[in-house]
């Protein structure tokens, strides 16, 4: 199965998986491969560690897309790294009904401190950016490299969490000026608030309440947008690709995430298993000749090394089989362990012999 076929009719490809399985590299390789097949592709990463730029030969990546130098025929490869704080600011500017509200939010200390400091906001902003780029329609395909999978689950929830919060009573409460809102909710609430003030310090609460109040003018816009982001994720033109290594823990995560995607009705398209030991089960004939050919010392060493590799290969085969059996009829692509590190465009091309090869 080839990534080209999996993504033939797709406009969005979301690569998800646990840390260290080669997700960033796989995203970049898939984007490069699709660009080489004539598509205009952008790959975006939300990984706070700046890995993607390196593998694409760019000195750095920013919140704007950059054209990756290289020969992609009719296609183009673009890359960007999401700056969550910047994207958040842009959203506020976009949704604010007037300049006063915009400045009130952007100037609010709760907003300033929390919009860039926080892990969760990054995931949400990635979804936002993905949606924005999709709306603009400048690319044939968007490839998103997500943070490790437990966080990836967060990002799936992020737009929904925001819209349900905006709908909630506590949000309404904060958006009523002064203490009026609290009185409306009765005496119990006053008690809750005085407890909250003791637990948090009153200033924090005031800042929060100010933040929510100025935010309220934009709430509807945010909510609608969150709904549309959710719709894009569930769209049939979107593909979720699971990326994993043959490591048992990584495969567990991949299986967990696969169930999660099925449960939430998101379009799962297939799995990529990276760094699989290439030794086949049948490999091993002619061992005796090798020993003879190389002489005692080296021959023995070579055979002992082969034993170790067989062990690892068998372990990988078990893992791959376990994953295969949970995927049903969905495609799975195995990329063997390559002798050199993949960290540049040439490395991505080597990877693509497998990702885009029809043989496997």
């Amino acid at each position, binding site marked *: 199965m080839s990534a080209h076929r999996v993504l033939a009719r797709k406009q969005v490809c979301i690569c998800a998986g646990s840390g260290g399985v080669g997700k960033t590299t796989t995203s970049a390789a898939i984007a490069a491969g699709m660009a080489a097949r004539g598509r205009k592709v952008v790959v975006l990463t939300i990984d*706070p560690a700046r890995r993607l730029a390196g593998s694409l030969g760019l000195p750095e990546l920013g919140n704007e897309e950059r054209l990756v130098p290289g020969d992609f025929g009719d296609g183009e490869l673009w890359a960007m790294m999401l700056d969550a704080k910047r994207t958040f600011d842009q959203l506020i500017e976009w949704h604010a009904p007037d300049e006063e509200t915009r400045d009130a939010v952007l100037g609010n*200390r709760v907003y300033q401190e929390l919009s860039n400091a926080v892990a969760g906001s990054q995931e949400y902003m990635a979804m936002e950016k993905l949606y924005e780029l999709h709306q603009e329609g400048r690319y044939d395909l968007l490839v998103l490299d997500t943070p490790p999978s437990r966080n990836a689950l967060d990002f799936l929830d992020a737009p929904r969490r925001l819209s349900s919060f905006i709908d909630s009573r506590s949000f309404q409460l904060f958006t009523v000026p002064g203490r009026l809102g609290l009185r409306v909710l009765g005496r119990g609430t006053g008690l809750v608030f005085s407890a909250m003030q003791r*637990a*948090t310090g009153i*200033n924090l609460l005031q800042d929060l309440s100010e933040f929510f109040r100025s935010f309220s003018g934009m709430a509807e816009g945010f909510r609608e947008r969150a709904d549309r982001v959710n719709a894009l994720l569930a769209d049939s033109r979107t593909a979720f690709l699971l990326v994993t290594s043959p490591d048992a823990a990584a495969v567990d995560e991949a299986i967990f995430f696969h169930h999660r995607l099925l449960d939430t009705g998101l379009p799962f398209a297939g799995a990529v298993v990276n760094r699989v030991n290439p030794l086949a089960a049948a490999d091993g004939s002619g061992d005796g000749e090798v020993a003879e050919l190389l002489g005692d010392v*080296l021959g023995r060493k070579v055979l002992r090394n082969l034993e170790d590799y067989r062990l690892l290969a068998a372990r990988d085969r078990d893992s791959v089989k376990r994953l295969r059996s949970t995927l049903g009829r969905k495609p799975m692509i195995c990329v063997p362990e390559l002798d050199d590190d993949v960290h540049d465009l040439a490395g991505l091309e080597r990877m693509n012999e497998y990702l885009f090869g029809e043989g496997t």
Partner: protein
Amino acid sequence: MPELLDKSLLLVTGKGGVGRTTVAAALGLKAAGEGRRTIVCEVAEQERLPTLFGGTQAGHHERELAPGLFGISIDPERAKEEWLRYQLGSALAGLLGHSRIFQYLTAAAPGLTELVTVGKVWELAQLQRKTAKASPYDLVIVDSPATGHGVAMLRAPRTFSEVARVGPIHRQAATIHRFLTDPAATGVLTVALPEEMPVTETLELGGRLREEMGMRIDRIVVNQLLPERFSGAEAGRLESVDGRGSPAIRAALSEYRRARLQRSQLRRLRRAAEAPVTTLPFLFATDFGQRQLEALAARL
């Protein structure tokens, strides 16, 4: 290494997939073996330690995994409840715990998960535990989340102490921040693999910790270093010999190339990193459990 195990808190950081949990567990075994009452904390809904020690998951409970070595997977919800109870007493804490407004608000408040998680880590590391009937630990080891999110977690206390200018959150968050950034109390150990990207990230992490937190990496552990089984001369012979298509020779040459590549990344790391670098061998094993952990602990 001994100087690190004498601190109160040891943060084990590093990119995903480099074996952070394994190294944290091996360090825990070593510290406990030397007579320190030690706990290894997992965070962000991860709980892999009990399985490594052949047990079942216990969640947000301090449970003994091996003599003197405890484990816990910190649940932010529970940590939040504990913090409220300590802060307000059980009656008010119960009131807040049942308040939907409070639940909504804390679920929506960004960064609170990180704050209460790191707060629980801090609590475990105090001689005067805030949790009733809890015994103190000599050493708390944290299996921190992957690089980027790990820094976000460490930054949470300062962020909150700045947002809440006064009041208990401000005071406590500031105390936690001071503890994290006090090199006498807290040590940082970064796990890496001898490969291009993990090495690059380790170097970047050093810079970020210094700039954003005023902290430094005390030690780097390079994990899964392949043995150098074949010399250059032997590899040359393998390449020229007739049977070079055979699996045995392919595997040997692959081993040779990868081991050599690893050595060059290891050299690059040693040249550029400020912290001393220790290596752990790649283990050719099909399963991984306490026996393998002990083998690694002996090498630390």
